[in-house]
C-alpha cells in the first residue's frame, strides 16, 4: 500500500540524513580524508535520489482528493517528516560546502583540526549506502571538483524545498505527532545495552558512566535471574508431581 511504501522510503531517507550528518561532522578534522569526501558525495547523491522519490510519491498521494480524513492526516504527518528531513539535509549540505571550501585536501600544508577523531567513517557510509563494504574509486582532486557539483545540488535542493512549500498545502503545525515525549527510550533497548558502561566519556564522568554501565548490565541480569528461577520452579514442580505420582 502507498502508506507502507512511503514509510519505508522515509525511513531510508531518515537513515541517510543521519549518516550524512555524521560524515559532515567529521569533515575538516583529522579523520578527514579523500575517502571521506567520496563518501560524502555518494551519500549525498543517494539522499537526493531518495528525496526525489519520496517527494513524487508523497505529492501524488496528497493530491489525491479521494482519500479519507485519517489517511490524509497520516500523509500530512509523513509530509512533515519528509520536509524536516529535507531541511536538515539542506543545512548539512550548505555546511559541508563551506567546510569543504575552507579545508582543501590537496594543499601542501594542510591544517586539519586536531579534534581527536582519527578513525575512518567507512562504516557510517556503508550504513548509509546500505552496502557491506565501501569501494573507493574517486580521483585525487575530488575535494575541489566535487564542490561545484555540491553547489548545484544545494541550489536544487533549495529549489525543491521552496517548491514543496509553495505547492503542497499542508499546514505543518496542524500535524499531531504520534510519539509522545520520551518515546525514544521505548524501543531499541538492545541498542542501549551494548553501548553502555564500556568506556568513560570524559574524565569527569567515569563514575556515572560505569554506574550506568553497571545498571545497564544489571537490567539484563534480573531478567535472566527471574527466568532461571522460574525454570527451576517448574522443574521442581514437575519432579514433585512425578514423585507424588510415583509414590
Amino acid at each position: 500500500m502507498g502508506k507502507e511504501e512511503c514509510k519505508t522510503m522515509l525511513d531510508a531517507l531518515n537513515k541517510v540524513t543521519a549518516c550524512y550528518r555524521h560524515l559532515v561532522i567529521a569533515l575538516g578534522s583529522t579523520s578527514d580524508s579523500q575517502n571521506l569526501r567520496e563518501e560524502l558525495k555518494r551519500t549525498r547523491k543517494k539522499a537526493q535520489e531518495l528525496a526525489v522519490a519520496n517527494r513524487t510519491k508523497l505529492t501524488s498521494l496528497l493530491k489525491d482528493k479521494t482519500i479519507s480524513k485519517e489517511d490524509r492526516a497520516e500523509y500530512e504527518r509523513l509530509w512533515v517528516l519528509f520536509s524536516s528531513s529535507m531541511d536538515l539535509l539542506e543545512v548539512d549540505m550548505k555546511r559541508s560546502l563551506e567546510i569543504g571550501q575552507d579545508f582543501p585536501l590537496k594543499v601542501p600544508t594542510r591544517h586539519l583540526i586536531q579534534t581527536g577523531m582519527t578513525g575512518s567513517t567507512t562504516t557510517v557510509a556503508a550504513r548509509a549506502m546500505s552496502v557491506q563494504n565501501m569501494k573507493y574509486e574517486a580521483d585525487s582532486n575530488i575535494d575541489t571538483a566535487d564542490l561545484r557539483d555540491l553547489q548545484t545540488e544545494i541550489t536544487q535542493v533549495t529549489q525543491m524545498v521552496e517548491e514543496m512549500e509553495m505547492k503542497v498545502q499542508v499546514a505543518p503545525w496542524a500535524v499531531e505527532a504520534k510519539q509522545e515525549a520520551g518515546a525514544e527510550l521505548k524501543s531499541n533497548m538492545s541498542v542501549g545495552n551494548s553501548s553502555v558502561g564500556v568506556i568513560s566519556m570524559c574524565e569527569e564522568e567515569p563514575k556515572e558512566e560505569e554506574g550506568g554501565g553497571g545498571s545497564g548490565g544489571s537490567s539484563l541480569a534480573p531478567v535472566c535471574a527471574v527466568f532461571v528461577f522460574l525454570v527451576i520452579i517448574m522443574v521442581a514442580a514437575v519432579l514433585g508431581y512425578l514423585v507424588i505420582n510415583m509414590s
Partner: protein
Amino acid sequence: MTIRNPIGDHGQRYRPRMACLKKAEKVLLEMQDPKSGVKSQPQRLVITTIPHAIAGEDIVAWLEERFQIDAQEARAFGSMLVSLGYIYPLIHHKRLVIKPDASLYRFQTPYFWPTQQLPVEDTDYAIYLAKRNIRKKGILELHEQEQYNRIHKWMNHKWDFIVMQAKEQYRAAKERKKPDRVVFECQERAYWVVHRPPPGTVSSMDYGLERRVDPNSVETKTPDFYERIMIFTQQSIMRPRVKSSVALGALVKYCTTYQSHDPFLSTVLPSNPWLTDDVTLWTLNMLTAEIPTRMRVEKWTFSFGELLADPRGRDDFRLFLKKEFSSENLAFWEGCEDLKWGTASTMKEKAEHIYKTFLARGAPRWINIDGKTREITVMALRHPHRYVLDAAQSHIYMLMKKDKYGRYIKSPVFKDMSKRAIDPVEQNFTDAQLEHNARNRRPCPSPIILQKQEEERKAKLAASAPVDITQLCRFTTPVPHLAVYSGIIDSPSATASPSLPFLTHTPACPSPISVALDSTSASERRVEAGEGEREGNPETRPLSGGNVSKSRMTLSLRRLLKRGCTPSTMFASLSPKCHSAAGTSSRIQPISPDQPSQAPPRRFGNFFQIRVDIPPECRIYPIESEDEDEENRSASRAGVEAKEIICPWESLTPQNGTG
C-alpha cells in the same frame, strides 16, 4: 584591515557583527600547525587513549608567544576562544574559561564552529536532547528536561521526526570506533553548552537578534547590490547638513537652557523623591495639577514644542486661544496628532471627522491654511492614511508657533499663571525624618486608574464644547463678543451634511456671518445647509439622508436667485425680533448671539460678503471633482454659514414655496 568597502558599513542590518568569528578561525588554523602550533598530548582514559588533547597552559603560552601579549591578556583571549566554542574543556565542561594549568582542552570540529549564517535550530537541539535521553536512560539535567518539555510542547508536529532522527543518529554513531564515539559525544555536548547555555553559564554567542546576511561574506556584485549603493549615496547627499559651528552653538544653547531643569545636574526643588522618599515633587508636577510649579512654567517659555508637550501647558494655551477665538488651530493640531498616533482601525473615521470639522468648506471650525496645502490635503484624503494631514498640521503648527505663541507668552493669561505658579521650598530632612519617609512609602497610582482619569478628562474636554468663532475668512478680524455656536461635532450623525456650501460674494466688504442660535435644531441646520446654491450648477446635489428638505430649499433658493427678489418678507418671518433689521445697511454689524443675521438683502451679490469657496455640491468628502477653480465662482456666490446662520432667504417653515 583592508579597505574593501570604502563606502562603509551601509547595512544597519549587518549588526550584530561577529567579525571576531572569522579571525578566531584563522587563529585556530594556526594553532594546528604541527611545528609551530600548540603541542598536543594524548588523553588517557580508563581503557583508551584519545589523542589531541591540549593543556590550558600550553594554549596560553602559545597565544602569548604568537601575539606578543602578556599572560593576562592571553588568558582572556583563550577564554574568549573557549566561550565562543572553538576549544572545549574536557573537565568541567560547563565552565567556559581557560585555566592556565594542566587541565585539558580539545579543538572543536569545524561543523560545530559558531556561524551566523545558519541559525542554531531548536530541532537540532531537540534531536540532541533525545539522543542524550537515550544514552542516559531518561535522566536529563534539570534545564535540559525543561527544554525538552518545552520543545515537545511547541514543536509537537515535528516530534515524530525528532524521535526518528535521534534514533537513527544514535545508531549511526555506533558504527564508529569507540574513541571516536567518545570524542563525538564530547564535541556535541560542548557545542550545546555554548549555544544553549545551562543556567549560570555565560556564552559569548548571545549576540541578540539574528540578521539575515553574513557580515563577513563577500557580496556578489549584482545589479541589486549596485542599486542599493546608489540609493544609499543619493540619500546621503540629500541629507541636510549643518555647519558644525551652528550645531555646536545649538548644543551649547540647549545645555545652558535646560541645565537648571535637569534633575541629575541640579537639585530638584522640594526634594528628589528617589533620595528622600518624599513624593511632593511628583504630586506637584502631576499632569493634572491645577497649579503648576515655577520650573514647569519656565519650561513653557523655552519653546513652543515644550509648551505643547506638557499637558498643563497645552491646557493653558487652549484657554488663551479660546480667548483669542482661534482655538480651532489647536484642536486641529490635536486631531492630527490623534490620527497619527491612534489605532489603525479608527483612522478612517478620524480623518473624515477632522475633514468635516476643520477642512471642508463651510466647516464649523474652519482652519486657515493656504490653498495649495488645502488642495493637497483634500486630494490625499481620498485615501486616508496616518500621515495624510501632515502638511496641514505643520502649517498650523508654524502658524501657532510664530503668531500665537509669542502673544501667549506676553498675554495676561500666562502672566497670571506665572504669578500663581508654586515655588516649592527645599525640604531638608533629618535622618529620622528620612527613615520615617522610607517606612511610609506607598506604591504609585495604578496605571489603570491613571488611564481612566485621562479618559475622563478627555471626555470632559470634548463635552465642553469650546466656543469659537468659525467661518472667519481671511478678511475678518475676530470680534470678541461675537460668540458663535460652533457645534462640536460629537455626533457627526447629527449633521447630515456638515460641509456647508458657501456662496461667496464679490468681497465688497467682508462680514462676519454668523448667528449663534443655540436652539437651532438639527433639522434647521440641515435646512440651512441645503441652500448651497450657486448659479450655474444646481444639478449636482448631494442627496444624503434627510436632504429632501434641503433640495427643496435649494430649489426655492434657485428660484429666488433667479428672480432676484429681496425676500424681506422672509426676513420678517425669520427674525421675530428685529424686523427693522431688514432694511439696514450692508455694513457689518456686530451681531449679538441671539439675533439672526441682519445683512440687508440689498443686492443678492453683496448679501453676505464673504469670500469662501464652496463646491457647488455640498459634499462631505472630496470624492468627486474637487478641482474647481475658485475664480469662476467667486463672482456669483453668497457666503453663508449654514449651521449657525439662518439664511435670510431660507425660512424655518418652508413658506416660500417648496414645490
